[in-house]
């Protein structure tokens, strides 16, 4: 694993996604209170923060699961603020979930193939009869999926039912499924939660590989500071629904607000993540 992927000279500076002043309330509880940040084309951005800081909420807002009360979400010059999740997926935002959301009764291959549905052009009948163009199309999709299987080293699990796979592998399958959409922006919600050290290292390597190969921006929500500092180029720190810091890993490490938010003065549970 190369620790810091070299920056491409021709990297564009334009923003892929602009998040502007997002407010999200659940009844009287304010989950996000005016969060703004940009995701630049081809960067790995990490969103960190203690439990309940609103990290997952912001991802849910971006891909349309939550409807924020106020704010703006601009993806490639298009406002996606009011769009439903399936439209957003079609626009090219792929994501994984903190609590794995796969079809546990299907094989790894079928899970990945299912994710190709947004790229399918042939109708149900043609697909069912499996001839001519429909057949060619399926073969082409299978090739894409096989590339992902190769990239994420899932060959041994290709035909295994997801429900029987260990947790770390399922996380990988989920990442694979997000990739199968061929997203232009990838959102990863705690891809390393609950993994052992070796699995974390593997996952970090996969994230860097994806970033290098697909040249897409990745937004990463993560608890594990060590890993985040290693792979992210920029970090956004949230605390109680507000952005308290933004910058390169070294800056964040020294930011007193961040240290306080993580080590805290009163809470004991946040200590575990520091």
């Amino acid at each position, binding site marked *: 694993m190369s620790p810091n*992927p070299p920056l491409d000279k021709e990297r564009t500076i334009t923003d892929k996604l602009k998040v502007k002043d997002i407010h999200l309330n659940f009844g009287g509880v304010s989950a996000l209170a005016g969060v703004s940040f940009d995701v630049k084309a081809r960067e790995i951005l990490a969103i960190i923060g203690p439990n309940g800081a609103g990290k997952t909420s912001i991802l849910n807002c971006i891909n349309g699961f939550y409807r924020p009360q106020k704010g703006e979400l601009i993806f490639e010059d298009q406002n996606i603020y009011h769009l439903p999740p399936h439209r957003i997926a079609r626009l090219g935002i792929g994501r994984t979930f903190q609590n794995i959301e796969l079809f546990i009764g299907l094989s790894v291959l079928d899970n990945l193939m299912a994710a190709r549905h947004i790229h399918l052009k042939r109708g149900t009948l043609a697909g069912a009869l499996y001839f001519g163009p429909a057949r060619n199309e399926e073969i082409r999709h299978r090739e894409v999926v096989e590339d992902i299987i*190769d990239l994420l*080293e899932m*060959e041994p699990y*290709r035909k295994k039912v997801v429900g029987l796979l260990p947790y770390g592998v399922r996380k990988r399958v989920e990442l694979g499924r997000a990739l199968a959409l061929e997203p232009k922006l990838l959102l990863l919600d705690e891809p390393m939660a609950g993994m052992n*050290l070796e699995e974390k290292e593997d996952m970090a*390597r996969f994230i860097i590989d994806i970033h*290098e190969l697909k040249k897409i921006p990745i937004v990463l929500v993560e608890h594990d500071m060590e890993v985040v500092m290693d792979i992210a180029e920029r970090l956004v720190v949230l605390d109680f629904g507000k952005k308290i810091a933004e910058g390169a890993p070294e800056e964040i490490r020294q930011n007193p607000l961040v240290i306080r938010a993580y080590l805290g003065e009163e809470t004991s549970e946040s200590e575990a993540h520091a």
Partner: protein
Amino acid sequence: MPENTLPKLLKRNAEKYGSRKIAMRVKSRGIWQSFTWQDYYENVKYFSLALLALGMRKGDKVSIIGENKPEIFWAELAVQSIGGTVVGIYTDCTPPEVKFFVADSDSTFVIAHDQEQVDKLLQIKEGLPLVKKVIYWDPKGLWNYDDPILTSFTEMVDLGKRYEKDHPGLFEECIEKGEGEEIALICYTSGTTGMPKGAMISHKGLVAIAQAWRDVDHWSPNDLYVSFIPPGWIAEQAVGVAGQLVSGMEVNFPEEPETVQENIREIGPTILFFAPRLWENINRMIQAKITDTSAFRRWIYHLLLPVGYKTAQHRSSQKRLGLIFKILYQVAHWILFRPLKDRMGLSQIRCAYTAGSAVSPDILNYFQAIGVNIKQVYGGSEQGLVTIHLDGQIKYETCGPPMPGVEVRLSPEGEIMVKGENIFSGYYKNPEATREKIREGWYYTGDFGYIDEDHHLVVIDRMEDLKELKGGRKFSPQFAEIRLRFCPSIKDALVVGGEDKDYVTAIINIDLDNVGRWAEANRIPYTTFTDLSQKPEVIELIKKDIQQINKFLPEWSRIKKFVNLHKEFDADESELTRTRKLRRTFVENRYIDLIAALYGNDREYNVEASVTYRDGRRGVIRTSIHINPVEETH
């Protein structure tokens, strides 16, 4: 013109089969992709020309480090086609080990599999001034590497195609010029003793070995082989590379090391070569599955297995089987053995081989019983293929009779000596060691053994590994260890003795999977490997195994005391070699205090092991382990 080099054989096969016959298959993107002999030849040709274009000369050495893939075969033949020598390096070598092999062999090119291997080379390239290029074939993760020393296999083939335009016929000319005496490869001895030495093997020798082997076991173009043993090992060179070239059989490459079991099942190979460990693992896996299955199936298994044993006994001594047993065997075959073998992908096996370290006779017997024709082979980088089990004359405790054309003799001390075309040409840059090992045409193997009444060779141990007890009685620790390893609950064992010691003791590695499952079934709670290994019930279990084995050992070499080690022997800590043989001297030195305690009166020993965790932190494990006497049984 006789085909006395590997490239000449390749050319002959390409002319004979062209694109009509498949030479190799590899599973990639979930599909078995085939390469015909024409494809094989062309890939070799262009790669070879590219090497010439980059300045490789006749006699240059090229290191190859990678897993079994077609590219490794192509690269090897490409190097040999222009008179070069291949140095095979194991993929799990550490960077300093790789550096030693590349530097010691004066390699000018290195062919590396993937990012993992390329990273190692980039790390050590400063110390390797001779290396002109590092060539990889799996580009994954290497997209952004811009080191000028790197180049990819595809780039090489393109370069070769361009080079051919200016130099037509050059490649064919190079092949024609090849001589049988040229060194085809250098195999580094695995180094159970001292620094590894590079054994040089000529084309003539390798072809002779492969041809003799082909004739003995009737390898044909219809045979299917799955290439899995390390390509740097002489066995894979003799079967996979040279064996394929002399017989025309199809070589199949698994997708990933993790998918081998599955891939073998898909291919249904007729020829297979595994290191003894792998056969032991398959056997262990079957035993574990049988323990887990329903009581009825277990009953069937234990009912029918003896039929297999009985049949195997008759078959291997060419005795006729009674009618009743013939019927019983058919029943057992259809109900038990056939499905069992099918599960393991072994149902089509004609010849299965094992060699390397000694294998337990029980393992051979077991596989013969379920109908897998497993044969033991004796050989090595230096001595080539010496003996092999012949069909119908299989004696599990021997390695079979000498191959045709190979002479075997014993020195007065009992050392095995070998003479013939198949012995190696000498150690690279080490004529002194060569003179010491080859005297008057005889290679002194350093193995202790004897020839039995049927002219079968029995290899007992390395000469230097024979141990003496106080009073001068000799015993072979390995002999007991192999048998210990056959017990399902024991993964590894080190048997200790010495001139200053009165009796024999053992350090045991329990098998976490099997013992863990056993503990679960018997409701014995445990936390870690260390904890499990010291449970009184587990100690009792191991003790029973040892008592069983003691029955077969001469009185003086029985194991009197043992410990269950708190950790597993680990290749990363140099306790095992890369082929998973125990590094005896190293382990004995490492546990010198523990061994002293085995000969003391204490019942407990405190261990303090410093460990390096995966993230680089260092720590100390403290625990006490029990020293257990083994009582005699009657």
